């Protein structure tokens, strides 16, 4: 009896050893890996996959929705706290502005087997990041509610407004529309989307001078206000997580939300009836435009400059393993729209794929865009509250932006 037990233990031990040796293709012998990343399921999967090939290197990860606040100070330190930062179109800009990330050309050449050319983010001919997933904000709708009231799936924001008004008039829902309008970053992001949908430009060509106080800006604000009027009156405090909860409680029939959140909306948690009726469609257009009122985003990894070459190498090898991992892409096809070879888009990727087809624009990667985004987030609130005219709000945004841009040396 005892002997068979021993045998079992031995076999499982052997199995364990053999099992880990399956990852030995990375064969990382030294170095320390420390990753800073946002917190949503796809990124957790990605980092876990990278961890699988860490070999004997140290491995640490910080998943935080406050990643933007930590990144610049943490990477400015020398040696930097993190060896890698998972960034996106907007968050790579401050890292570039401060010269905190290193070019990856040599590492890609040496260890980048399986990474597709389309995944490489090149700036001025140098590879600065390796993208692995795409994201955008698009429409979600409740099929049952729309069908019952005979409403077609909206394709433009004008139709979204009309549909929401109809749902409200039917008495089914009081606040049928939801979007992340929380004052600050989220609200500014909604403005950016809607303004791009109107065909607007944020700056005078080739300069850092703002140019949003125009007819397109006013139309953007008016559309945001119309939509806000159809949302829960607390909309200025609602971020993506809050509207997800609203949706899952069945209070909302139309919603603009990130594609990367579809996984948690469509999982088995929550009311099965609502989950079954939750359908995804592309982003809406606005004011007769052909490009969607949405921005395309990529998520990719960057390596800290202020960290030893050995750490950078170890980190790159682990992350590159994940960024070219067909098995991860197949297992987690539901979690994101992966940009990695072998990805077969499922029903949850409709939003992003439609956005790309409709030629959505990427979020503007300009050095001064963060300041504009910040100014938008606080200065358009009073317009939505009805305390200010649209023109005044846009004038305030430009003025607030100019002071900040002057302090930062952009003007």
């Amino acid at each position, binding site marked *: 009896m005892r002997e068979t037990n021993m045998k079992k233990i031995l076999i499982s031990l052997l199995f364990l050893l053999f099992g880990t040796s399956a990852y030995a293709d990375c064969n990382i012998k030294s170095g320390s890996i420390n990753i800073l990343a946002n917190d949503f399921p796809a990124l957790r999967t990605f980092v876990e996959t990278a961890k699988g090939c860490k070999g004997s290197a140290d491995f640490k990860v910080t998943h935080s929705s406050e990643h933007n606040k930590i990144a610049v100070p943490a990477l400015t330190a020398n040696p930097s706290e993190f060896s890698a930062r998972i960034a996106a179109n907007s968050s790579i800009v401050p890292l570039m502005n401060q010269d905190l990330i290193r070019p990856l050309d040599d590492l890609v050449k040496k260890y980048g087997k399986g990474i597709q050319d389309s995944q490489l983010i090149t*700036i001025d*001919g140098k590879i600065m990041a390796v993208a692995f997933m795409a994201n955008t904000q698009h429409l979600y709708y409740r099929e049952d509610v729309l069908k019952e009231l005979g409403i077609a799936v909206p394709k433009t924001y004008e139709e979204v407004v009309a549909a929401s008004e109809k749902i409200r008039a039917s008495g089914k829902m009081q606040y049928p529309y939801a979007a992340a309008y929380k004052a600050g970053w989220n609200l500014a992001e909604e403005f950016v989307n809607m303004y791009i949908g109107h065909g607007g430009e944020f700056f005078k060509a080739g300069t850092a001078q703002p140019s949003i106080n125009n007819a397109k800006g006013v139309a953007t604000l008016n559309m945001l206000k119309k939509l806000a009027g159809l949302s829960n*009156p607390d909309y*200025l405090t609602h971020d993506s997580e809050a509207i997800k909860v609203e949706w899952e409680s069945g209070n909302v029939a139309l919603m603009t939300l990130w594609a990367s959140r579809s996984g948690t909306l469509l999982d088995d948690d929550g009311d099965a009836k609502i989950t079954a009726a939750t359908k995804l469609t592309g982003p809406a257009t606005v004011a007769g435009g052909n490009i969607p009122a949405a921005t395309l985003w990529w998520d990719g990894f960057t390596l800290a400059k202020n960290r030893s070459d050995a750490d950078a190498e170890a980190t790159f090898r682990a992350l590159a393993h994940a960024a070219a991992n067909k098995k991860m892409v197949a297992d987690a096809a539901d979690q994101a729209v992966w940009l990695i070879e072998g990805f077969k888009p499922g029903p949850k990727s409709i939003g992003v794929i439609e956005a790309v087809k409709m030629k959505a624009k990427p979020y503007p990667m300009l050095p001064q865009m963060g300041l504009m985004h910040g100014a938008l987030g606080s200065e358009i609130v009073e317009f939505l*509250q009805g305390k200010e005219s649209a023109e005044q709000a846009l004038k305030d945004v430009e*003025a607030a932006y*100019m002071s*900040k841009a002057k*302090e930062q*040396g952009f003007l």
Partner: protein
Amino acid sequence: MGIKSPLITLMPNKTFFWFFLPTGLAMILFIGLPIISTGIQSFYAQHDQVVKEVKKCDPFGCTVSIVVDQEKTSKIREEKPLGKFNGFGTYVDRNHLAIEEIGKFWNETNSFGEFVDQVTNLPFYKALIFTLTYCLFVTPNVLLLGFIIALSLNAVTRRIRGPLIFGTILPMIVTPLVGSLVLFWMIDAEGIIGANLQMLMDDPYLSLKSSKTLTWITIIIYGIWHHSPFAFVVFYAALQTVPQEPVEAAIIDGASRWQRVRHIVLPHIYPVVTFVALISLMDNFRVFEPIIGFSAEGSAQSLSWLIYDNLVNEEVILFGSAAATSMMTIVGIAILLAPVLIRTWKEFRTAR
């Protein structure tokens, strides 16, 4: 009339010096020097950014765009790591004191009301007005409420005093952020307070979070709730030192309860009231956590929130702006405290 603290009357200046030295050193190291460094930083802005046009490619295609020219920028940065000297430039810009803008408003507006509207639309003045309103409403109410609770608790029988005191100081024990979050959920349109208010007022669109006035009221009520226990604890301790003889004498003379409080208790604990008022004012001027807890950034900004916003809310960190607002907050607290401090100093002089 107030009693002199035994420490001050008994301790010679020399002993006091040695007694205070370790604290003093720590204060210089951890408070004084950082303030000086912040002050220096507030006079600097970033160097002019050198940008260049480059080709950028990502999964969605290639575009010609601009980036910061690192080679040229790093050279400038090495020469002058603090940045470009800006003097009071940051202090007077539109996002702070906005001297130029105010001058313009004064000339352009037709009525005083319009002028005030324009000025209070500027971020610094908007924040200053909320901060002052918060101080003006919270501080006196905290003093009053704390005193009333202390008096009533002092009057109840000793047996139930312990549990009552514990219950009363609970708001202070609860972390401010947690306390405000709890209230935030309760006043949600579907929370227990929010939903009942809608029913009571018969207005389905009533939202404590979307209206500016209601948000302010909520934060002020929260502030009073959170700070009262501090005033209560100090007042309660002070009440224990009130001598019994004059109180008994007053009872024999037929003084009412109010007269006893007014003429014996209050004069006795007067120095403590000044102390609590000082601390409360300082605390309230730095109001910050409830704004984050209530997600009230849209309707209520305080000076501390402005500093936080400059440091973290943007992807570009505005050190100069944050430093300038910090310095002005310190000046603001000094101005607020000046009357109380001057008075205390005068009393100290006459007492000697």
